[in-house]
C-alpha cells in the first residue's frame, strides 16, 4: 500500500506551494495532477504580486505571502520583476480615499506613497493627462506563474515528493482513489481551483471568466503595474460582468492588458464585445495603448467563493481532509501564505495568521 503524510491534489500555483512547503517540512508527499503542472488558472494569470487593502483578512494573507515571495526574487524561474504597483484615481472620490489606503498598507508592514498629478506623470508618463492622483507600492512585483509552479513541483520532488500523473476519481476513506483504480493512502489536501466542486461539491465555487491581451515588445512604454483604484469594486462586486484598467510591463517590454470579470459564462472563447469593453477602459487611462500591436488574447477562469476569500483549512465532517482553493484573482500572490497556513494547521503549529476568516466551515450550515 502507498502511504503518504499528505496527498496534494492539483498542481497549480496553490497546490505546488503546498507540496513544496510540506516536502520542506519533511513530510512524505504525493502530488496528483493529470494535466500540465501550472497549466490551469495559473497559466492564464498576470502574475502580479499585490496586496489589496480593502479586506483586513486578505491583507494579512497577502502580507505573509509577499514576504515568502521575497525568497524567490533572484530565482531565474520566477522571472521576478520589481516593477511596483501604481494605483491611479479616476475620480475625486477615489483620490480622497488614497490617504486611508496608504495608511492601511503601511500599517500592515507594506510600503505605499501618495502621488499628486505631477508625480504621477513623472513616474508613468504614458498615463492620461487628466488623472489627478495615485498611490505607489514600490516593493510589489510580477512573476511568471506557470514556470514558478513547475519549479516548486520539481523542488518538492527533489525532496522526495512523488508526482502521480493521474486524476483523482474520488476521495475515499483515508486517501484518494485515482482514475486507474489505484489508491493513495494518507491525509488529502484538495487544491484543484475551479475543479473543486467535482471533489468537494459542498463548498460553493463559481468560475469567473477573465480576458487578457498581450502586445508586441515596446520597451520603456510602461514602467509599473498600473491599476485603477476602482479595481477592487470590479474585483469584489458580484455584477454579472465588469471591466477594470490593469496593465503590466513584462520584463520583455511587452504590455499585458486586463481586466474583465464575468460570472455564468462557460465558453472559454475570447468574447470580442467583452475584449472591446476591456480595451476601451484601458485606453481611457492610457491612450498610448491604442498605438500598440496586440499579438495574443486569451481567457481564464478564476475560482471564486461567495465571499471572495479562499477556503483554507479542514473540510468539516471529514477526518484528514483539507482544502486550499477559491483564491479568485489573487492565487498567485497568496499561494505561499496559503501553503504556510495550511501546513501550520496540518502540523498543529501556531498559525502564522488568524485562520478563522478562511475556514471552510464558514459557508456550511
Amino acid at each position, binding site marked *: 500500500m502507498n502511504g503518504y503524510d499528505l496527498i496534494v491534489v492539483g498542481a497549480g500555483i496553490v497546490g505546488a506551494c503546498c507540496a513544496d512547503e510540506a516536502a520542506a517540512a519533511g513530510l512524505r508527499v504525493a502530488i496528483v495532477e493529470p494535466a500540465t503542472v501550472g497549466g490551469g488558472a495559473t497559466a492564464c494569470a498576470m502574475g502580479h504580486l499585490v496586496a489589496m487593502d480593502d479586506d483586513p483578512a486578505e491583507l494579512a494573507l497577502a502580507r505573509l505571502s509577499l514576504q515568502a515571495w521575497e525568497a524567490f526574487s533572484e530565482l531565474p524561474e520566477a522571472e521576478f520583476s520589481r516593477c511596483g504597483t501604481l494605483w491611479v484615481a479616476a475620480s475625486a472620490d477615489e483620490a480622497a480615499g488614497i490617504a486611508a489606503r496608504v495608511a492601511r498598507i503601511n500599517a500592515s508592514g507594506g510600503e505605499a506613497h501618495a502621488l499628486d498629478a505631477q508625480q504621477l506623470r513623472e513616474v508613468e508618463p504614458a498615463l492620461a493627462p487628466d488623472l489627478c492622483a495615485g498611490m505607489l507600492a514600490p516593493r510589489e512585483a510580477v512573476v511568471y506563474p506557470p514556470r514558478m509552479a513547475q519549479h516548486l513541483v520539481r523542488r518538492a520532488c527533489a525532496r522526495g515528493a512523488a508526482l502521480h500523473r493521474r486524476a483523482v476519481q474520488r476521495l475515499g476513506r483515508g486517501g484518494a482513489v485515482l482514475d486507474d483504480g489505484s489508491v493513495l493512502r494518507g491525509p488529502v489536501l484538495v487544491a484543484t481551483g475551479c475543479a473543486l466542486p467535482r471533489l468537494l461539491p459542498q463548498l460553493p465555487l463559481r468560475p469567473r471568466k477573465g480576458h487578457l491581451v498581450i502586445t*508586441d*515588445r*515596446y520597451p520603456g512604454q510602461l514602467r509599473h503595474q498600473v491599476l485603477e483604484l476602482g479595481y477592487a469594486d470590479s474585483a469584489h462586486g458580484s455584477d454579472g460582468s465588469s471591466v477594470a484598467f490593469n496593465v503590466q510591463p513584462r520584463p*520583455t517590454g511587452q504590455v499585458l492588458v486586463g481586466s474583465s470579470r464575468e460570472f455564468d459564462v462557460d465558453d472559454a472563447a475570447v468574447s470580442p464585445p467583452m475584449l472591446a469593453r476591456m480595451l476601451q477602459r484601458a485606453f481611457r487611462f492610457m491612450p498610448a495603448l491604442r*498605438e*500598440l*500591436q496586440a*499579438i495574443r488574447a486569451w481567457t481564464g477562469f478564476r475560482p471564486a467563493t461567495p465571499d471572495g476569500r479562499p477556503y483554507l483549512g479542514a473540510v468539516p465532517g471529514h477526518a484528514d481532509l483539507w482544502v486550499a482553493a477559491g483564491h479568485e484573482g489573487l492565487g498567485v500572490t497568496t499561494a505561499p501564505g496559503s501553503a504556510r497556513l495550511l501546513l501550520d494547521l496540518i502540523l498543529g503549529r501556531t498559525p502564522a495568521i488568524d485562520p478563522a476568516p478562511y475556514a471552510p466551515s464558514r459557508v456550511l450550515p
Partner: protein
Amino acid sequence: MTAHASVRLQVDGQPVEVPEGASVAAAVARVAPTRFRDSVHGAPRAPLCGMGVCFECRVRIDGRVQLRACMVPVREGMQVDTHG
C-alpha cells in the same frame, strides 16, 4: 503603360527612390536585400508572407515601432529604421 511617379525616402539613413504605391518592404529590399531586422535573440529576419500575417518584417517608421513594412505604402520623406 503609365509611368509611376517616384517617392523618395530613407532606409537606415540611406536615400532610396521607389515607385509610388510600393510597400516599405520593397524599399527596404532595394537598399539592403539581404539584411532586414534581427530577432530578439539576434537571428536575421526578413519578410516571409508579404501580406501582413507573419510579422517578420516589422520596422520603425517615423518613430513608430513594430509596423509591418509589407503593409505600409511608401510616403515621401519617410524615415525607416529596420533595427528600431
